[in-house]
């Protein structure tokens, strides 16, 4: 697409729409971006494929750079609530995040608040050990709110910088599970009025259009402050994040790039767009 000298003909714009759709950007956004570029190419005389793609990237980047993508961890302790549908990568992301925080000189403690799924607490415990952080856990089947309560109290007592809260995967269509999430949030708010400082929705990069529905539903239940796109080391490009950022104005803050402790990066919009457009 971005080849120097490539003509800006119908084939170019068709290919562009295809690239965007193939990246899971969705039909609406893909066609809108293509139509806008077509107009701009005439108006601003963008020349060739290289010029047009550079202009498109710059335009998208201009919007994406208006977000503050840093985690808000100014308060001690700051609470980071991690939510999302089943299997998206929440537990693994928390392990990586605890490690990253430690590398940055911040202490953290993990609340193993997935008290439902088989071996969820065991899994979180392994990650806590790998990251060199403490874990607060009850027995399986315990009230997740109680685990969060204990974790925050422990963090306050020990003057820990960040509390990372792992929650059970839940499909946003399950009313009772979303209500449970609301309850967990209120436990946090009652203990620390400004908390949770971060509510991160973890989304698997292979997710298609359902990512928007997930984001809308979770945002309604517990106001999101950021997204984590996981499994970007795979072949999926996670293009749904563009529409989600646009519609919710919630930024992608972190990306998962593998299954290791170190495989978590700050989201880099420029690098991301380069990966989409080649």
């Amino acid at each position, binding site marked *: 697409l971005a080849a120097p000298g490539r003509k800006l003909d119908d084939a170019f714009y068709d290919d562009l729409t295809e690239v965007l759709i193939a990246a899971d950007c969705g039909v609406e956004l893909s066609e809108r971006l293509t139509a806008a570029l077509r107009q701009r190419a005439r108006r601003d005389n963008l020349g060739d494929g290289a010029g047009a793609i550079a202009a498109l990237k710059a335009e998208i980047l201009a919007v994406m750079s208006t977000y503050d993508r840093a985690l808000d961890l100014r308060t001690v302790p700051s609470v980071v609530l991690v939510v999302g549908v089943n299997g998206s990568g929440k537990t693994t992301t928390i392990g990586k995040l605890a490690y990253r925080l430690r590398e940055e000189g911040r202490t953290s403690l993990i609340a193993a608040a997935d008290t439902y799924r088989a*071996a969820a607490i065991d899994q979180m415990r392994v990650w806590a050990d790998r990251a060199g952080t403490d874990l607060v856990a009850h027995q399986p089947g315990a009230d997740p709110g109680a685990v969060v309560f204990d974790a925050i109290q422990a963090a306050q007592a020990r003057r820990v910088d960040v509390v990372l809260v792992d929650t059970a995967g839940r499909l946003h269509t399950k009313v009772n599970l979303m209500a449970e999430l609301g309850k967990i949030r209120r436990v946090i708010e009652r203990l620390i009025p400004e908390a949770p400082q971060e509510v991160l929705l973890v989304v698997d990069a292979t997710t298609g*259009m359902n990512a928007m529905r997930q984001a809308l539903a979770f945002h309604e239940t517990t106001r999101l402050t950021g997204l984590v796109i996981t499994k970007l080391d795979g072949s999926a490009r996670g293009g749904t994040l563009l529409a989600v950022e646009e519609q919710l104005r919630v930024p992608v803050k972190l990306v998962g790039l593998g299954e290791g402790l170190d495989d978590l990066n700050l989201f880099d919009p420029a690098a991301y767009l380069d990966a989409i457009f080649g």
Partner: protein
Amino acid sequence: ALSDRLATALRRFSGRGRLTKEDVEVGLREVRVALLEADVNFRVARAFVDRIRERAVGNDVLESLTPGQQIVKIVNDELVALLGGEQRKIQYQPHPPTVVMLVGLQGSGKTTTAAKLGLAIRRDGHRPMLVAADITRPAAVQQLQKLGLDNQLLVTVPDGKLKVAQLCARGVAEATRLNCDVVILDTAGRLQIDEPLLDELRDIRKATTVHEVILAVDAMTGQEAVNVAKGFDDAIHVDGVILTKLDGDARGGAALSMRETIGKPIMYCGTGEKVSDLEPFAPDRMASRILG
């Protein structure tokens, strides 16, 4: 829904009595968009529309008072035909044990599905053994053990110091020793672009005879469903697909994408987190779900 969009799109032609082929093209575009919004892969969506075009420009559409409804019927019929075909459950070998291997991307639902299959197989009058062959994910073995414990399913945990292929062979041997006639290998999640991990699956097939390879795919998978299915099928040959998390509101276009690309049947649907939440695949219900 597609019927509403078609009604709107074709309304401007309704005054003239009979549609032209060009008018139908407007309707076919709506079909393609609807499929894309349902996560059907863009190449599969285009091929699908090309397939139905001939019927869609037939007289029963052009002369219909409700051409939109005619097109919806054509689309639905074609979807059901493509998704359905060979209805397939696990095929039990005349000489047991039947060895089933579950594969797929990270988090697609393999471990949970292994237990679900175990329960279904036991209810079928067979004796399943689950093999905890994921030795990389933290507490994966404990996860399968807990599911087994809660549902009275046998789980074998071969020596974690072995290579995965040898571990699976040991699991099959143990199952045979205990008179189990079906073995389910729960493997670690992996990317279809991870060649060394695809080799690991190939090594499993060399170390022990695998009769059925089932690919677990999350129903919310988008455009990459084609590449994922092709990647696994080209590497180790897939026999069937299980679509998981269908209790959500993902449209499930990945089902059509995979069926069209690798031509393997969708055997079951995962419809919840409980081990009893496994249902046989129903093509007509999947078709109306994709159409939305």
